[in-house]
């Protein structure tokens, strides 16, 4: 008789200790059900614009099916440098300061692995994108949470950073516009944070994947701030702005020595990003601006529609200035965000993501993506209304208030 291998035991304890994603469970639940309208999707509902797909087909016909340089196609790096220079007046040398990655996902992993030694601390806003904490842990670091809330428009402040800094703090991870809150950050706030970063000799990883999806004011590119270009690793990609999630292409830009070190890992673990995706990204940057703007316009209309709908439902919702998420409060229903999302799914067939999936600080909220058609949004809100009515019965009358984004806002969302 041969003994069976206990694979569980063989798994690296660090990996074993990482909890399963809170999103996974909802995915399984929602997939089993029919007739679900999903506001749980963290990606555009648009298909990649046709000119980009067509360019990719052409590249295949022409036989572009090989590896590219580890850095990625030089033409693509040049276009990225041009885009950053034109939009934000930040200048990167396409030859040695930009690395094409397999999405921001790989860029983030590379940056963290290149940077972190065991015990290093990384400051991350909470709530935040589900991958940050696990990627930090896997790279040997320790996530330290900067607890943002609706009170200050889910923005990190210099004060928060200052308070959280220890001798072990190595890097501050920022993500604005933010997933899951849709929050943007004010330039003033960023300037103050930059001062602390310089004073405390920290580095910044700035995930600006939603940068083009900014509806209120203008996006501030972190490396464009005084003194920050030298201290920032900028991560961005094509997934959200050009509706290209499945293509898997993004980039990192920063100090040439650091980019070279990232490339070392990239070269041995990934080799290069898919050439087909790189060709498509090139087309997106060269000719995709007008279609991208059209998509942004549509998100903005839906954003207003969704805010209005939550107001009518009586669920207090912070006004998101970017991305394609709304993050309303559901505390007054007396349910936890998990319970709310699960019951909403089972009873009303509307899928949302519980705020707790994005960290403790997300509790009491749900994330609703408005990357969905107007018809679907309207239907989803109709269902949600019935659901809330049934839930609340005659017991409570919901009262909602609107909170505008801003560093300090007095009208905190009411929780009944």
């Amino acid at each position: 008789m041969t003994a069976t291998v206990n694979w569980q035991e063989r798994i690296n304890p660090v990996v074993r200790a990482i909890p399963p994603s809170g999103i996974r469970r909802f995915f399984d639940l929602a997939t089993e059900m029919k007739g679900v309208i999903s506001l749980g999707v963290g990606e555009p509902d648009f298909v990649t614009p046709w000119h980009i797909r067509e360019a990719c087909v052409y590249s295949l016909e022409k036989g572009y099916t090989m590896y590219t340089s580890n850095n990625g196609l030089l033409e693509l790096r040049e276009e990225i440098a041009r885009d950053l220079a034109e939009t934000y007046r930040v200048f990167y040398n396409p030859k040695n300061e930009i690395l094409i990655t397999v999405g921001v996902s790989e860029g983030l992993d590379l940056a963290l692995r290149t940077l972190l030694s065991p015990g290093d601390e990384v400051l991350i806003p909470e709530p935040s994108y589900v991958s940050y904490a696990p990627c930090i842990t896997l790279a040997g670091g320790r996530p330290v949470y900067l607890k943002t809330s609706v009170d200050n428009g889910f923005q990190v402040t210099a004060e928060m950073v200052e308070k959280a800094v220890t001798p072990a703090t190595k890097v501050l991870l920022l993500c604005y516009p933010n997933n899951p809150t849709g929050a943007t950050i004010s330039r003033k706030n960023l300037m103050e944070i930059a001062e602390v970063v310089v004073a405390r000799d920290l580095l910044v990883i700035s995930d600006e994947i939603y940068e083009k999806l900014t509806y209120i004011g203008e996006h501030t590119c972190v490396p464009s701030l005084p003194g920050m270009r030298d201290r920032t690793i900028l991560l961005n990609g094509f997934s959200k702005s050009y509706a290209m999630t499945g293509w898997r292409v993004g980039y990192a830009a920063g100090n040439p020595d650091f980019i070279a070190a990232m490339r070392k890992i990239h070269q041995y673990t990934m080799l290069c990003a898919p050439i087909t995706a790189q060709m498509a990204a090139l087309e997106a940057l060269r000719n995709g601006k007008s279609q991208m703007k059209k998509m942004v316009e549509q998100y903005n209309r839906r954003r207003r529609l969704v805010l209005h709908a939550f107001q009518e439902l009586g669920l207090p919702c912070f006004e998101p200035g970017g991305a394609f998420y709304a993050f309303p409060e559901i505390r007054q229903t007396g349910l936890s965000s998990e319970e709310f999302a699960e019951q909403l799914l089972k009873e009303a067939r509307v899928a949302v993501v519980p705020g707790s999936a994005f960290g403790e600080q997300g509790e009491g909220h749900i994330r609703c993506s408005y990357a969905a058609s107007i018809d679907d949004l309207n239907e989803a809100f109709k269902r949600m209304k019935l659901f809330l009515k049934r839930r609340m019965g005659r017991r409570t009358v919901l009262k909602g208030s609107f909170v505008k984004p801003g560093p300090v806002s007095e009208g905190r969302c009411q929780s009944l």
Partner: protein
Amino acid sequence: MKEILELLQTDARLTPGQIAVMLGRDEEEVACKIKEMEENKIILGYFTLINWDKVGEEMVSAIIEVKLSPQREVGFDSVAERIYRFPEVSSVRLMSGAYDLSVMINGRTMKEVAHFVSHKLATIENVISTCTHFVLKTYKYHGTILEDNESDRRLVVTP
């Protein structure tokens, strides 16, 4: 104003209230603007796009290239009017290039269309010649793909 039109162009059923919400405007103001644009004939009508093939209705469409000799003072306008007044004519455009008018006509049978061309259109004074192209299949019409099978293929929940 342009934004209201863009929204209505994609969905004529949108109410002023819905448009107002999406544009962050006042409902009253939007309703007023729409009314004004209707009065000024900026908005000419609200239609439904129908794929008659699916209804099983026999329909024949043709695009007719028409060459004209222009008339003093009115140019092509008066001949164009004589053509576009026919209800079976669905569009009339003045073109640059090898011919002058592009006329789209819908009929129930090929015979009906042929009859229109030979008896009505070709006999109009100043019409020099016509060339009729019958439509075999429509793929896209009014910016809408008729048989679009690009449905939402995303997973239900993603981070």
